[in-house]
């Protein structure tokens, strides 16, 4: 018992550090380790992972609030989409075949790998040109943020609100079904679909993660998918790891770690998919 708890604590620590450095929730690291490494049923791995998503999201948001990057109205409005998605996802987990979850998770890892590769090649941010949007004006979603790099106050507008809300439902669904924060999907909804600048998009996505995860976590908590001996050491480990991670991040170039992570995610993703199809090593 003691050994397992300490090992899970270590997994949480690692996921917290890596998550903070790479700007991802620990979810995509935790579930593969718990299922492939510890042989835990994927349903319990997802339940434990969703708890650590809440822990990291709440911890990181405190830092973002100090930077004045959040758009609280955008977060609140889009949370309607993510929370409904998350609950549907959590209920679906009890219905679908575990094999399907493995394949889905593997696909997600492949996507994350590609996403990270894209970030490696990304250049300087360009402010999107947007047209005034009547829905955005009505919901008062347009705002401004202070860019530390250029030392300027940047005003921005958002558009395609229904499109963004639909992508957010999908992000919530993925979060609830796979126990992840689904940050990249949320950023995609705001940045790519709604044309919000990347910095407030990332900060707002982080704030939304906690509420989205809480929606599915309550379902998991009461139906017994959150095992105390797994979720507790994991949450404590992740909290400590994330705190350490933000300190390490300032000294370590994230680029270097991403270069290692791209092939690693590809490999683990492939393994999850193979496990889903019943191929074991």
């Amino acid at each position, binding site marked *: 018992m003691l050994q397992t708890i300490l090992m899970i604590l270590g997994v949480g620590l690692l996921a917290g550090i890596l998550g903070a450095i790479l700007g991802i929730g620990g979810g995509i690291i935790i579930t593969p380790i718990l299922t492939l490494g510890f042989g835990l049923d994927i349903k319990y791995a997802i339940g434990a992972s969703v708890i650590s998503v809440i*822990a990291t999201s709440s911890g990181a948001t405190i830092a973002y609030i100090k930077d004045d990057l959040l758009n609280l109205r955008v977060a609140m409005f889009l949370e*309607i989409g993510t929370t409904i998605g998350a*609950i549907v996802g959590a209920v679906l987990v009890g219905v679908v075949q575990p094999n399907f979850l493995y394949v889905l998770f593997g696909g997600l890892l492949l996507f994350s790998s590609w996403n990270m590769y894209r970030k490696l090649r990304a250049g300087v941010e360009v402010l999107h040109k947007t047209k005034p949007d009547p829905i955005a004006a009505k919901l008062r979603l347009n705002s*401004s943020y202070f860019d530390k790099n250029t030392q300027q106050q940047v005003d921005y507008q958002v558009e395609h609100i229904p499109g963004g809300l639909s992508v957010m439902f999908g992000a919530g669904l993925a979060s609830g079904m796979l126990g992840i924060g689904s940050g990249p999907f949320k950023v995609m909804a705001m940045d790519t679909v709604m044309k919000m600048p990347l910095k407030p998009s990332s900060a707002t996505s982080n704030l939304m993660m906690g509420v989205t995860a809480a929606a599915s976590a309550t379902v998991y908590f*009461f139906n017994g998918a959150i095992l*105390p001996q797994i979720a507790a050491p994991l949450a404590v480990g992740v909290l400590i790891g994330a705190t350490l991670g933000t300190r390490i991040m300032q000294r370590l170039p994230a680029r270097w770690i991403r270069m290692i992570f791209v092939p690693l995610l590809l490999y683990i993703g492939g393994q999850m998919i193979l496990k889903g199809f019943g191929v074991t090593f």
Partner: protein
Amino acid sequence: MATQKEQQTHTEMAQVEKSIGVILQIGVIVSAIIIGIGLLLLLFTGHSGYPAATFPAHFSTIFRGVIQLKPFAIIMLGLFCLILTPVLRVVVSIYAFAKEHDHLYVIITTVVLIILLFGMVLGYLDI
């Protein structure tokens, strides 16, 4: 005139965001302490307080276990507090928007809260 009003909403929002930050911080620290106590108790006593492969997942059994100082019950209480932290953030936001007379966002935020409570009921009924 318009910019002055915009400036006003911006400072108001900053105030709301600050109070949310405090709530999140307190919530995370309190839950981490409860979970930590439960874990330490589990490590020192060596047993969870429940038969093998079982644990409490409902309010009544958790609270009964907490009074009897059962490690798993204390851990579950801590985990539940952690889950409640973002929910509490939503509740505070409703209050903050109401104070600013932003009725539209009081409604939007209340809808989010209702969805969250609905999820809780779904889990409780084990659907």
